[in-house]
């Protein structure tokens, strides 16, 4: 039923904030379609609205105007609580500062989303978390606490966590912003690999070089899209060194919880 429709559809979206100085528009009249399997980079200077846009895509925030649809879900209509449940199954979020639960081990962090959403039967969760950690080449670090891991390792755990419930969409706000360029490359390679296995990835970056390796590049300025190059179907260029083995469950990558999927 979704044939002919993009996976992510953003229409006439505006986002304003009430500030002491009056209404401030972080996004204005944004229209954007992203097909399933696209690898999208969002760039722009600080304060241009990148994070705001990404939050709307991830259902972390709701627009003040317009509609945001992901798969068959009208995200802008969901309540905070419905959004949380929807995110848990459909979106994997990766943060700049990794944001792992400090008192949980790596593998427990990966299991946490499964715990909240209960997608996998409890018996399978540990095995799945092990496989995901192995996929990000951290199979032997499973029992460590975040404080005992390097930044790059923490970010890889965070990516494994984002994949826990096998969501079709991954969003990442400056996922490499806190990593040196070599580590950033390794993390980026993981993303490329995920896209190859059918995931849709939208990420924000300040790194021109990384951005250029995405399949599509969206540039924001003052809350508007000022440039949009690449687009659906482009194969990622210049994939970095193969840092990880392919994600075994990639076949299910395009699955959306209501059965809808990318064209």
């Amino acid at each position, binding site marked *: 039923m979704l044939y002919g429709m993009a996976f992510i559809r953003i229409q006439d979206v505006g986002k304003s904030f009430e500030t002491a100085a009056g209404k401030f528009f972080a996004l204005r009249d944004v229209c954007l379609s992203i097909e399933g399997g696209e690898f999208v980079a969002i760039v722009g200077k600080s304060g241009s609205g990148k994070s705001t846009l990404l939050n709307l895509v991830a259902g972390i925030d709701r627009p003040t105007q317009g509609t945001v649809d992901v798969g068959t879900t009208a995200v802008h209509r969901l309540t905070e609580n419905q959004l*949380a449940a929807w995110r848990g199954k459909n979106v994997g979020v990766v*943060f700049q500062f990794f944001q792992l*639960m400090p008192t949980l081990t790596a593998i427990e962090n990966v299991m*946490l989303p499964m715990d909240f959403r209960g997608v996998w039967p409890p018996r399978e969760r540990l095995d799945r978390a092990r496989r995901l950690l192995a996929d990000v080449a951290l199979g032997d670090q499973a029992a460590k606490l975040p404080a005992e891991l390097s930044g790059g390792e923490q970010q890889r755990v965070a990516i494994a966590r984002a994949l826990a419930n096998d969501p079709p969409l991954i969003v990442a706000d400056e996922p490499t912003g806190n990593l040196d360029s070599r580590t950033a490359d390794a993390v980026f390679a993981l993303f490329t690999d995920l896209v190859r296995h059918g995931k849709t990835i939208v990420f924000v970056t300040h790194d021109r070089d990384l951005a250029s390796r995405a399949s599509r590049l969206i540039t924001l300025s003052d809350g508007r899209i000022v440039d949009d190059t690449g687009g659906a179907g482009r194969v990622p260029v210049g994939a970095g060194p193969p840092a990880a083995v392919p994600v075994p469950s990639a076949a299910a990558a395009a699955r959306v919880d209501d059965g809808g999927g990318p064209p």
Partner: protein
Amino acid sequence: MPLPPRWRKVWRDLWLHRSRTVLVVVSIAVGVFAVGVVAGTRQILARELEASFASINPASATLQTLAPFGSDLVRSVAAMPAVAEAEGRRTVYVRLETAPGVWTNVQLIAIPDFRAITLDRVLPVTGAWPPPERGVLIERSAIGLVQHAVGDDVVIKTPSGRRKTMRLAGLAFDAYALPYTLDGVAFGYITYDTLAWLGEPRDYNELHLTVAENRHDRDHITDVVEQVRDKVERDGRAIFFMTIPEPGKHPLDSTIQGMLLLLGVMGALALGLSGFLVTNTVAALLAQETWQIGVMKAIGAQRQQIAGMYAGMVAAYGALALVVAVPTGILGTRAFTQLMAGYLNLTVSDARVPPAVLALQVGIALVVPLVAAAVPIVAGTRISVREAIAAYGLGTGRFGTHRLDRWVERVRGLSRPTLLSLRNTFRRKARLTLTLATLTMAGAMFIATFSVNASLTRTLDGMLELWQWDIAAQFSQSYRVERLRNAALSVPGVVAAEGWSYTTARHTSATGGGGSSLLSFSVPLIVFAPPAESRLIKPPLIRGRWLVPQDEQAIVVTTGVLDDQAGLDVGGRLALRIGGRDTTWTVVGVTQGIGPMPFVYANYPYFSALVREAGRAQWLAVVTDRHDPEALGGIAEQLEAELEQAGLRVGLIAEIHQERAEVAAIFEGILALLLVMVGLLAVVGGLGLAGTMSLNVIERTREIGVMRAIGASDLALLRIFVTEGMLIGFLSWALALVVSVPLSIAITRALGGALLGSALKTVFSPVGAAAWLGIVLVVAALASVLPARSATRVSVRSVLAYE
């Protein structure tokens, strides 16, 4: 199956912040412990009192006559259709030698057949049963008073002045006997053969009876007792004393209930205060973990799941508190029950804490913290993901926006670090409010307890000022006043002596006489008739005037007399039945009562003539030249010997300092209990402050690191936090001072009602206020030193790594 990761997080957070966990758990445990002990003691005492009472088959009423009567009267009362059982006994007051030359009052009760007691049963404890001839069984709670062991021979003086040596043959238990500390008289039980051997006639002066129907209906009992009274009076015996206990209740029931209520209120208060600490801790915890909440929401946690995690953590606090509070509560209940049982002369046969009390503890340990945490949990988990992630890393607690802040800002002339402490104190207003509330309540209770003590002592002193005599003797019959005075004045050390009329009376309208809220009893009015110009009595007048020599038919009454006489006051008329005569009086004054007994005072010359006893007295009041207890004791011994010598039959001898000690003993017991509870409150208050201070330190780790970086020494950091803690302590003291005023008034009112049957005048105790200032400052310093020390351990480097 392994614990799901979110519960592992909860569990690790509990463990990681052990000191915080311990603090919260201990404070909940204190509250749960206090409530458990009070509720448990109440239940056990109620259960045991009922069992103990049922086993003795308590009489519905007891009548004491002035003249003795025989078994025919007992039989004819027993035969009345409204009466189920009737039993006669004889009570004799004797003096028992506790040490050479030292005598104490013993009330000997002769029972016709120890194996066939039907009413007010006396039960064997140790030794012989029934008592052998020439042997006495002492009520077990009085064994400390007689200072002899079972098997000893003891010397007693009979009312006729004869000395007899008796065997202390064993101990008995009489549920009605209050421990001697409460009324200074020991009870002893003898057979009629022993009674005859003592030279007393084999007849009765006490009639115990139960009603046939409606045993728990006091009005019905009163009706029946009136019939019995009429019968006894028709038989020519004037009633001296008539007692109708509250059916099925221990005589001290209302006192026990009042005290338990007060303790229960304090227990609930301790619990409430520990709830505040939970609120504070959970609020701080959620503020600290805001970003974690945001991240969990971002990865799919719904609000109720996160709320559930924190609720689970709070429930774990409650469960851990139970681990502490249940066993200590059981021990505490045992100890407290024993203490109360001793006070009530009660054997606790089964000290098991009722399951309902354990269930109550479980319930409050789980519910109270959850209720206390509900607001911060609801508020803390409401935050949206965007806000939570955006707020990450920011300090919390705003200073500068509130009017109070601007006021604090204006404070000048303090050192920079002190200023910092002052401003920090006001940063977390909700937390400060709850901490202050905790400490303030503890402080107010503490100060109020001291004020209550001062009020009780003042009242006691005031009450005893009534008696300006040092020694008094009560006689079993009246004697000519001149004879009494001559005998007394011949004793060295006696400087003045007066003879007074002393008898009992009752309202013509009512059976009982004055009510009493201390004893669940109907008792008669006690009549004293000193000469109006007597200087040996100084009643604390509340309204009206004291007697004047020309007074006739004028009467001064204690407040207790007015209790069940609606509308009666100064100027009103009072109809009294005295020694079988109906008399009418005009109330000219109202005075504070001494203890729960209702007293009336009349003018001696008129009164003694009225009762056909002109020139005679049953009461001798004596003033001595020395007043220390030893000297008084010596003079009392000589006086007793002298009176005996003169052939005067002494019933009881009272020394004023003993009277004082007896009342003081009751007060002290209550105050000790209050202080224990206040101690618990202070502990909870201190824990609350320690909790607040450690939360402040944890929250300001980043700031501390920065202060460190700009050169703050250990001492400077320590001073900032300790000053802050002591500032809170001082503020709470000032507030406690204010709150203690209405609190003191309320408690003295309630206690006065329970103990003395009238409201007390509240005296405020500067000692309590000063002591609490000292305590709260020390507690505050201690409560902030530990968190402050952990602040000094914060290194600049660790702050950079701080999440």
